[in-house]
């Protein structure tokens, strides 16, 4: 076991994979600096800096994957994927079906997401539910260094397109780059267990589309992902003091969604809360409820999500994003309702 930062783990796992497989090529804006260690070790042909032409290089990454390369295309922040989403929506995600299963595009789209540092609504979105809505697209969201490295390998091993989302509050270099800018005069609520933690000596992938239980409990199921997993775990500590045992599930993958794991837990607790930093309506939180209902489960349901555009002002942003306080509040409400 080693200790590593969230960002360090991604880089370490990626380097391990790149050393083994020369078809892996990283491309994106500023990668010669953002991935300077990979750039120095693997050279400019495998760590390629691009112009600000996302539609072109993401579209090209998809086709390069079709032609045998294994591109890791970086969209600096997931918000910016909007200008290039056609490559995923109409091409990468459709290819397997359109070709009758004969052709796939194993491209990894690595992109930073999430808020908590005051950049505002065009730079702090999550959008994983929006992306996972598209059939044929896998979407993964690690919440710990160990998962960050392992899921990068899983994504690289997957035979279709994967969006790999890296939360900026967990990745120290992003937070310094965008939030602190070298200042000591600002601070952020960084979940310690997400930003740094134990990782294996040799990276191995994790099973595709499998959630993990971060904390056992029998009163209430909290399903979450990314930074919100840590907020939920903190809230679960508060709830424990009130005699409420919450089970915290880290989804890790939005698509495929491990509905089995959620279903097993809810069958036990009959209460589900989804904590999702992505938008509330028409997204992951509603989808989980719908799938459980389709399975015939009866349960009380609540959710803590981002409900509107993320505001710029830090105090407004704190209220808008899922927080320990909001989760505790929602859990109390849920617990006050009789089990169905």
């Amino acid at each position, binding site marked *: 076991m080693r200790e590593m930062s969230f960002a360090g783990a991604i880089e370490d796992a990626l*380097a391990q994979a790149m*050393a083994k497989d020369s078809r892996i090529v990283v491309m994106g*804006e*500023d990668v*010669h*600096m953002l991935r*300077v*260690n*990979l*750039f*120095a*070790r*693997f*050279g*400019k*042909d*495998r*760590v390629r*800096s*691009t*112009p*600000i*032409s*996302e*539609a*072109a290089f993401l579209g090209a990454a998809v086709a390069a994957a079709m032609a045998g390369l294994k591109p890791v295309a970086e969209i600096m922040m997931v*918000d*910016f994927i*909007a*200008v290039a989403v056609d490559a995923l929506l109409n091409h990468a995600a459709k290819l397997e079906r359109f070709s009758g299963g004969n052709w796939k595009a194993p491209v990894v789209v690595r992109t930073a997401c999430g808020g908590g*540092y*005051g*950049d*505002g*609504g*065009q*730079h702090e979105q999550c959008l994983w539910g929006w992306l996972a809505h598209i059939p044929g697209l896998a979407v993964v969201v690690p919440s710990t260094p160990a998962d960050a490295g392992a899921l990068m390998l899983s994504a690289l091993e997957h035979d279709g397109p994967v969006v790999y989302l890296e939360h900026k509050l967990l990745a120290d270099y992003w937070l*310094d*780059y*965008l*939030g*602190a*800018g*070298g*200042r000591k*005069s*600002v601070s952020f609520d960084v979940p310690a267990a997400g930003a740094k933690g134990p990782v294996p000596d040799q990276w191995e992938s994790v099973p595709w589309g499998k959630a993990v239980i971060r904390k056992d409990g029998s009163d209430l199921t909290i399903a979450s992902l990314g930074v919100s997993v840590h907020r939920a775990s903190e809230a679960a500590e508060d709830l424990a003091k009130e005699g409420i045992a919450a089970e915290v599930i880290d989804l890790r993958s939005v698509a495929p969604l491990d509905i089995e794991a959620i279903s097993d837990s809810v069958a036990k607790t009959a209460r589900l809360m989804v904590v999702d930093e992505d938008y509330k309506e028409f997204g992951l939180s509603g989808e989980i409820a719908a799938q459980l209902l389709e399975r015939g489960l009866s349960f009380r349901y609540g959710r803590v999500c981002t409900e509107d*555009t993320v*505001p*710029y*002002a*830090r*105090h*407004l942003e704190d209220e808008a994003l899922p927080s320990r306080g909001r989760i505790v509040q929602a859990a109390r409400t849920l617990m006050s309702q009789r089990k169905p």
Partner: protein
Amino acid sequence: MEPDLFMLYRQMLRSRLFEEAVMELWNEGRISGEMHLAIGEEAICPGVCTQLRDGDALALDHRGTPPLVMRGVSLVLLLKEFLGSPDGLCRGWGGHMHLFAPERLTASSGIVGAAGPTAVGFALAHQHLRAGAVAVAFFGDGAANQGMLMEAMNLASAWKLPAIFVCKDNQWAITTRSASVTGGDLVARAASFGMPAVEVDGMDAVAVWKTAATAIARARTGEGPSFIKGCCLRSEGHFLGDPLVRVARHPISEITEIAPPLIKAVGKFSGTTLAARAESLMKITELIGTTVKEQYLVKDDPLKRLRDTLGAQKKECEQIEEQCRREILQAVEDALPGR
């Protein structure tokens, strides 16, 4: 036509002093997130903005503070917005990358290239609703490679819209030298869309003003769009805390942080050839070298240049300087009483 040099000087100075005040507040931790200043770009914005009038529109990128200052948006509202106040220009919802002033038809976007289609849309509305009004897009050299911006130039040309595309070329897109990721020449590229495209000295406010006057006149009379590109030099880099600027300014502390993992990575057994690894390191060294040069060796400053031009009129200049200083101090005091 000749510009009023004092007016240009005043607008440039207001913008400079305002952004310096913003920098201080940001350093104090009162402003959150990224902060992209336009210090060094001041010759380009006023050369265009001082010729705009009511009804004209502006489409701005992530570096939109100076055009708003020059268009007369309240400095206090701007500051309060940056401070995240509910009384800010956008009630604390936008921040410095997302500034909107509907009464001046001015919209910003943090999405690189978005200024293109936005200006085209404003210009289209002008064509129907406000004959004689123009729409200006300000964007960077990096944005010039964004598809939607190129499409927007074509659309403006095909529809003969009253749009002016202004590229502020600092030769950088964050840490990427634009030349290394750009095919061909941006002026020739714009010209190929069938519009007048001009390169102007982006550090010379008077030259920009004259070039802009031609483009604006052309747009006002319904003859269609133009493209102007000016090169400039930004001392604060991409944003406050720019990693390359940090290395240039604090080489010892920054390099001790970057070097260990870098040396470890370069020394790994598997990877590319030694020559290619050396080339990567050379490239990083070169980028740092260019930044150091821009920080310490190049002394060109658009504000100083105009001040030198005005050299003989010392009294008038000093009066403007005093007025601007007082205006900015007052704005900070009003936004943050008793700081």
